[in-house]
């Protein structure tokens, strides 16, 4: 009658076909909720839509409201956002640091426990994407763009502040150096600066992403709940997650994702524009930036229409290849020996300083731990609904152990190598060549100025600009998929025009805020969503353990 045997069960590359035969007992949660039951289906103007009525409507109104007040009352709202944000990082830094440590510890511990044997999607599930495609996608979504932007500047900054040592006024430290600084000792300052940078780009951010992604993946693929943030809360709220509590969680996730993307799109456009100006003399002004955002959005639209497999995956792999070429080039042409030995030294410095850097209580380096670390944690956490949901969606068929190694350990290692190569080269230029051009350049240009000291600068800078732009295309693309699935009540097969709608809104909001001002203000507002999401993530930790305990473990 049916023919489930005409598929090849062990073909991991095969993105799109084959019913994975009987998948073993995945313990579905027993609920009467039917996915899409609260959805509205209609076809205004001949375009079909299938949306979660409340989540879509309220999210749209909240987004519109924030764009308008930020544009209209910029001077009034900026201080409000700033005060809120400073309160969060100032008074609740310990909470962010403590929570992030919990996420890392849980992720690492799960690798080594028998729970690591549970397979996402049931015992017999097979992966939808190849290793290369999978890794490229999660890396591009997770931090590709950040590494381009901060890979040079952050190591250099921490190195500089550490070297300058500490300054105390009225018994309060006013310097921004990590821990106890390393005044006058260049080698120690390099170590500490690198350790501090890697700390912000290593296990902790990926631990944050891993927790969200794993919780969503388990509750969607193994427990049969819709792929939206609210499903994480099922073990705590039960059937109430389908009510207003769930709506609030989902709306918050849409808000954080959309404004996170829009502000990043604006910031990325400014880096790409600065780079184009530096390289080709293209005027660095609003017209160029608007054209860039429009162009990026247009390419993202094509990618969205092509889907996850042929759109995001291909672009991510292309970018992964380009990024590694650039990385390899910097390693070979830059101070090769220093980068190779530096990789191990920095890794060691990271682990040596990790306990002190991640300590939530009694910190002397308040500026660093609040202004840098807590800021970063809030930032990563506010991004986590977007990145986590996207990672979850492409991770079906992996075991929990495989998942955590690939989402936590591999990207962290790549971050160490990246920071060592790009930051290390810039620091080397300062220490050994006495070149201070990078330090003196504006943030957007630091990467290009560093590359300018190496041969073939026209080519490498151009590759750098392309990388920035393609990372934004994949972010805009995967972000639209995520927002669409949340606002469609967890459906991933809602009509295509909805994805297009969200991609256009992202670009539109970015342009509006770029021209009207307020990008920075809204970024602050986005990061404040880090606080409620920290609570969501803590709930996710509980949900992961509870969910995994009731799953069969594959061999």
């Amino acid at each position, binding site marked *: 009658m049916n023919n*489930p045997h005409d598929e090849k069960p062990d073909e991991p590359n095969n993105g799109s076909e084959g019913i994975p035969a009987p998948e073993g007992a995945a313990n579905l949660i027993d609920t009467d909720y039917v*996915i899409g039951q609260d959805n509205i289906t209609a076809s205004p103007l001949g*375009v079909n839509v299938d949306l979660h009525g409340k989540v879509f409507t309220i999210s749209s109104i909240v987004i519109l409201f924030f764009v308008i007040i930020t544009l209209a009352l910029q001077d009034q709202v900026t201080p409000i956002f700033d005060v809120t944000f400073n309160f969060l990082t100032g008074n609740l830094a310990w909470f962010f640091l403590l929570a992030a440590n919990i996420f890392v510890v849980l992720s690492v511990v799960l690798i080594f426990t028998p729970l690591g044997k549970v397979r996402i999607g049931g015992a017999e599930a097979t992966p939808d994407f190849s290793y290369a495609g999978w890794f490229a996608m999660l890396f591009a979504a997770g931090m590709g763009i950040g590494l381009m932007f901060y890979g040079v500047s952050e190591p250099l900054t921490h190195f500089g502040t550490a070297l300058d040592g500490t300054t105390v006024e009225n018994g309060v430290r006013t310097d921004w150096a990590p821990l106890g600084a390393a005044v006058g000792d260049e080698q120690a300052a390099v170590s500490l600066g690198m350790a501090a940078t890697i700390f912000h780009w290593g296990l902790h951010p990926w631990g944050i992403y891993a927790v969200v992604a794993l919780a969503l993946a388990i509750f969607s693929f193994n427990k049969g709940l819709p*792929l939206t943030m609210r499903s994480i809360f099922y073990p705590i709220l039960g059937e109430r997650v389908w009510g207003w509590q769930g709506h609030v969680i989902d709306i918050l996730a849409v808000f954080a994702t959309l404004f996170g993307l829009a502000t990043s799109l604006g910031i990325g456009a400014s880096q790409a524009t600065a780079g184009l100006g530096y390289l080709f003399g293209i005027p660095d002004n609003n017209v160029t930036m608007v054209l860039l955002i429009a162009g990026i959005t247009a390419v993202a639209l094509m990618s969205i229409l092509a889907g996850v497999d042929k759109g995001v995956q291909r672009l991510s792999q292309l970018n992964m290849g380009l990024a590694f070429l650039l990385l390899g080039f910097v390693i070979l042409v830059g101070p090769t020996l220093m980068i190779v030995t530096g990789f191990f030294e920095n890794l060691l410095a990271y682990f040596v300083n990790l306990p002190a850097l991640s300590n939530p209580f009694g910190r002397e380096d308040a500026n660093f731990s609040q202004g840098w670390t807590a800021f970063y944690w809030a930032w990563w956490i506010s991004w986590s609904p977007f990145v986590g949901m996207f990672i979850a969606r492409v991770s079906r068929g992996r075991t929990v152990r495989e998942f955590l190694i690939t989402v936590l350990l591999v990207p962290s290692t790549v971050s160490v190598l990246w920071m060592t190569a790009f930051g290390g080269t810039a620091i080397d230029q300062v220490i050994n060549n006495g070149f201070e051009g990078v330090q003196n350049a504006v943030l957007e240009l630091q990467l290009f100025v560093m590359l300018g000291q190496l041969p073939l600068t026209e080519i490498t800078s151009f590759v750098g600009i392309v990388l920035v732009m393609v990372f934004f295309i994949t972010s805009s693309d995967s972000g639209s998929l995520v927002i669409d699935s949340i606002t469609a009540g967890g459906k*991933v*097969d809602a009509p295509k025009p909805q994805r297009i709608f969200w991609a256009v809104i992202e670009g539109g909001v970015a342009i509006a805020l770029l021209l009207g001002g307020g990008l920075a203000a809204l970024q602050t507002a986005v990061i404040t969503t880090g606080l409620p999401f920290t609570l969501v993530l803590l709930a996710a930790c509980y949900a992961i353990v509870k969910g995994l305990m009731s799953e069969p473990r594959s061999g």
Partner: protein
Amino acid sequence: MYRKIMVPVDLAHLDVIEPALEKVADLARHYDAEVCYVGVTANTPGSVARTPQEYTQKLEVFAKERGEAHGQPVSTKTITSPDPIADLDDVVIKAIDEVGADLVVMPTHPPKHLDVIMPSHGGKIATHTKVSVFLVRP
């Protein structure tokens, strides 16, 4: 003339495809052909089923009911995809050869301007297969 008719079905929107399904039954009786119902589903939980297995079961039940109604032999094929909306055309084209169909019958909408950006599934499939394709307009 035709031995195996393949019919892509969307279990979530049966009302939309019902007219096409009637024609399938007529054709199957006329040619004494087997009908293969093909369903494409997301691997995430959806409105029809919460797992691909559950989807397969529902598709089998559906095919069995149809088979009893029109009296011709039936078969099914479930295809799972991480992004069914975008991958639909490709996986259906691939399935034509896999199930060995010699006629595809599927519902489609009248041509419209939006087709330039998002071509209709039926139109796309017809241009990418050697077998006959019967597009049923509402």
